[in-house]
């Protein structure tokens, strides 16, 4: 009799729970929504592809040597300047050479190899400063939001000043003025770009984190944690951090292409990465002289920038929709 009652109770519970459909965790649910988003999926594939190309353009680690790039990107060939990509042959171009699939630039360097090496710089630019920005922004923002006080006041004052500049303007000033110092010359100008991007962007992340922490800090579950005697550190890491993670992930997803864009603009203006190191921005800058006669040395890196930035935007948009289904922007 007891067993019958128990099973009946279970059956009843099951009936009553029809409304509660299959329960997935928030993160799995978000992941499911992300991969159902076709644009985001395409974006992920492109990012994966570009990363592989960047890594294996010239991979020499653990005794394995893989080299996808057909030439040294800095190799100058006197008699092979301004070759056009091989497909232009079908449109009547006589200046093609099967050895240079994407053609060559005004110094006779192989464009394909240069594009491949450029992707390395872009990825490094996308990863390193964003990591710095996120770490600093999180630490400062959480401290300011959680404890308030002097840190908070200072952060808000700094933000006011930084917000009076357009980001890019600020980066340009920093990079331009410090360009001829040891810092500016380190790693062909890469380091100063890291610094410029980091100095300008950590403030935005810190302010976002601070706002999020403030909005979560007084919610019931944090009160509850405090009531059972959790330490501030535990409250921050176990209760507040997971709840502000979603907007931070979305911000990071958009910060990566933002950093890449900054590098390409700086290099295009001639104050970014120092030639001859190839980046897409540098290639456009160098090729612009011959643009009206031979457009390919400019068009090809321009296409690469566009595709990679679009891929990141698709993923960013997808992430935002997935993590916050209410905001459809």
């Amino acid at each position, binding site marked *: 009799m007891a067993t019958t*009652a128990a099973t*009946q*109770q279970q059956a*009843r*519970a099951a*009936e*009553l729970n*029809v*409304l509660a459909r299959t329960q997935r965790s928030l993160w799995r649910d978000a992941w499911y929504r992300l991969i159902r988003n076709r644009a985001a999926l395409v974006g992920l594939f492109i990012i994966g592809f570009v990363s592989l190309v960047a890594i294996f353009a010239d991979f020499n680690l653990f005794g394995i040597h893989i080299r996808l790039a057909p030439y040294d990107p800095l190799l100058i060939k006197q008699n092979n300047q301004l070759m056009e990509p091989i497909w232009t042959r079908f449109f009547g171009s006589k200046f093609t050479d099967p050895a240079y699939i994407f053609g060559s630039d005004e110094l006779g360097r192989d464009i394909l190899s240069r594009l491949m090496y450029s992707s390395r710089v872009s990825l490094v630019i996308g990863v390193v400063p964003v990591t710095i920005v996120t770490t600093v922004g999180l630490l400062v923002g959480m401290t300011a939001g959680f404890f308030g006080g002097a840190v908070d006041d200072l952060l808000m004052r700094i933000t006011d000043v930084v917000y009076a500049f357009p980001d890019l303007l600020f980066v340009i000033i920093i990079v331009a003025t410090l360009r001829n110092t040891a810092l500016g010359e380190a790693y062909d100008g890469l380091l100063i770009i890291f610094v410029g991007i980091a100095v300008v962007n950590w403030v935005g992340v810190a302010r976002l984190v601070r706002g999020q922490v403030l909005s979560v800090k007084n919610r019931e579950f944090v009160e509850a944690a405090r009531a059972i005697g959790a330490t501030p550190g535990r409250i921050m890491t176990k209760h507040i951090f997971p709840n502000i993670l979603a907007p931070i992930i979305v911000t990071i997803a958009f910060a990566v292409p933002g950093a890449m864009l900054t590098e390409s603009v700086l290099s295009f203006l001639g104050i970014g990465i120092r030639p001859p190191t190839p980046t897409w921005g540098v290639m456009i800058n160098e090729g612009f002289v011959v643009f009206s006669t031979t457009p390919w040395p400019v068009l090809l890196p321009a296409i690469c920038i566009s595709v990679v930035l679009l891929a990141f935007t698709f993923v960013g948009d997808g992430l935002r929709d997935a993590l916050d289904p209410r905001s459809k922007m």
Partner: protein
Amino acid sequence: MAQQLLEVKDLHTQFFTRDGVVHAVDGVSFELAAGETLGIVGESGCGKSVTALSLMRLIPIPPGKIVKGSIVFDGADVLKMDDDEVRGIRGNNIAMIFQDPMTSLNPVLTISRQISEALELHLKMDKSEARKRTIELLDLVGIPSAKKRVDDYPHQFSGGMRQRVMIAMALSCNPKLILADEPTTALDVTIQAQILDLLKNLAREFRTAFILITHDLGVVAGMTQRIHVMYGGKIVEKADTGELFANPKMPYTWGLLRSIPRLDERRKAKLLPIEGLPPDLIAPPPGCRFEPRCQYRRDVCREKEPELVHIPNAKPDHEARCWGTQEGGWLVDTDWRKEVGDTRVIEEIKQEVAQLPPEPKPGDVPPSPTAI
């Protein structure tokens, strides 16, 4: 029989969502005579608001769609009209008062603009006439110093005052029917009674029929002549107000009555919630919609859906949708009143039910309370 003001027949409104088709209103029929008042009662998600919105064709399409049925208002089928004809009815012949006066008024337009809009549109008033009428209407609904406040914005009014504005707006074109969808739910308890009185008195004065939609049986008690109880997209019981309170014939209605707090209760009574959740309207139960939550269910309830039919031991126009209280059912003689508010009595009834003749099966195992 006199010509009815409103005749709804077999109305089906569905929402086409990613998870499936939601049968929000599933075969609802009722009538309303001119000047008559009707209450539609049910818990959230039972389809009562969707019914009201369907009457004015205000269902958002897509995802919603009125799939079947007819809504004959004043001799013409609203569902067969073109968009212009429907607009000619909205605000003019049928007006609606919405639940939340905080969000139902446009924050960036003045009160005067929002009321005179309909006057200019339907009654072809010019600006100054409409303004004059607007002030009169605001006076009528009891806005103090209406003349001064007419150019204020909604955020300058309190919730109760805004709902008065909504009532003024609904009355503006002297409609034949007002649909009031939970008009007091968002308001303070003290304000609720005022607003209900105002609505009742003005409707009587203007000879306007109204349908009051609410989840609270206590609200409709003094307000309407008749009450329809809805559950899971269907009407499950229809009766005159007095009859429904005196002689309810559907276990769901019993549940609703049991969950009204009563001041005249002598014993230390507990309020008894209806256990469980309303049915999933994407895949509703095949039999009676209330069966999964019903204490009195039998196998037949699960297998076949009962019709809305006249009930023995009740007034002639009292109908219910329940196998138990229908002719020959096992609940015909059950006295629902015994249960109100007293758990000991409930235990008695449970034993009683368990011993009822044909199916001595313990169908009354208390369900596990579902987490809210």
